Every structure is written in structure tokens, then in C-alpha cells.
């Protein structure tokens, strides 16, 4: 197989000292709304708002990520197609990336959210910056309390 890297990147379970530490895949929200490219923005926006979200991941039938809708895209004309308004090919990250690394990257690059995908591009969830920063702080605080 493609080795341990591929296993980790698929978000599959592992054992070892890092296994219980929060990573991108464990902190990512798996209930993020999704839509397809051939939908219209209006109904998608309604669905996203009803679910209490301000973002939506554009996927195909195999949940492979094609794009992302953040607040700015969701506010566009409801008659436009998702394909037209989405941010295509967003930067994605693998589930095994340590959460502190993700938090630092998202803050440095001013990323409000990032899709977390397996190595074959399938959506695991959406990692929100505030969730990543919070989890990284909790981890840091826990380490400081350990004698």
C-alpha cells in the first residue's frame, strides 16, 4: 500500500502516543452542509442558513470536494448556479495534521475554514479556524498542567 502516510491521510484509526491527540480530522465538523455543482444558490443558501452554517462544501456523488461556499459566495444572486459562484479547488488538508499546526497555518493565512479530505479528495469535514485555535489552546493548556 502507499504506507503509513496514506493510512493517516485517510483518517483511519491508529495506535500510539499521537493517537489520542486532536488532529484536523477529529476537530473538523462533519455535519457541514454540502451541495452539488448543478444546484442553484438560492435553495442551497436556504438549507445552509437553516442548518445554522455560514459555509457549504461543494462535492460530487462520491463526496469528492470541488469547491467551497463561504459567506461572500452565499450572499450572491440566488439564481446563479453553484458552479458559477463557488470558490473552485479550495486548499484542503489531510485528517492527520496536528491541530496546533493547522491552527497556526489558518491564523497566518487568514483562513476562516478549510475542508479536510482524505488523500483521494473525499470530504471528512470542515475545520473552522476558531475550533482549531480553541483545540490547540486546550492541548497547550493540558500540556502545561501535566507535571
Amino acid at each position, binding site marked *: *500500500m*502507499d*504506507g*503509513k*502516510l*496514506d*493510512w*493517516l491521510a*485517510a483518517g*483511519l*484509526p*491508529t*495506535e*500510539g*502516543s*499521537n*493517537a489520542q491527540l486532536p488532529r484536523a480530522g477529529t476537530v473538523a465538523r462533519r455535519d457541514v452542509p454540502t451541495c452539488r455543482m448543478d444546484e442553484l444558490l438560492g435553495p442551497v443558501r436556504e438549507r445552509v442558513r437553516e442548518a445554522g452554517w455560514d459555509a457549504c462544501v461543494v462535492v460530487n456523488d462520491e463526496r469528492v470536494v470541488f469547491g467551497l461556499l463561504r459567506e461572500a459566495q452565499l450572499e450572491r444572486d440566488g439564481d446563479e448556479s453553484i458552479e458559477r459562484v463557488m470558490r473552485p479547488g479550495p486548499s484542503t488538508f489531510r485528517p*492527520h495534521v496536528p491541530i496546533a499546526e493547522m491552527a497556526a497555518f489558518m491564523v497566518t493565512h487568514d483562513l476562516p475554514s478549510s475542508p479536510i479530505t482524505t488523500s483521494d479528495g473525499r470530504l471528512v469535514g470542515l475545520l473552522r479556524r476558531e475550533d482549531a485555535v480553541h483545540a490547540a489552546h486546550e492541548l497547550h493548556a493540558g500540556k502545561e498542567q501535566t507535571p
Partner: protein
Amino acid sequence: MPNEIHHRREVQALMDRGAQIVEVLPREQFEEDHLPGAIHLPLRKIEAEARKALDGDRPIVVYCWDSA
């Protein structure tokens, strides 16, 4: 006969059939993360210790960091 496994689903299927999973990376990397139930046999020791540590009648999956 040794076979090259290309997909993690094949590994999972072999694990379900009781395969022995062997990581050949250095101890530090093994201790941080390894596949569930994996045995640690560093590459330098694998020839000398494999017969003693592994059951030759069951499938054995050997892995390192990536496919390179």
C-alpha cells in the same frame, strides 16, 4: 509469495482475516503512530528477527512511511 498491496482497503481486508501487520520504521515513529495491532520490526532487524516474531502460516503485511 510476496505481493505488493496498493490500497488500504486490501490491508483492512487482510487485517480482518487476522494478518500480522509489521511496521519497519524507526522506534520513535512507531511509538507515535502505527496501524492498529502492528508489530514493530525495524528494517535493519527484519531479516534476523522475522522468523522468530512472525507466524509464517498467516498473512503478513509490511509497511513503511509511503510507497517510495
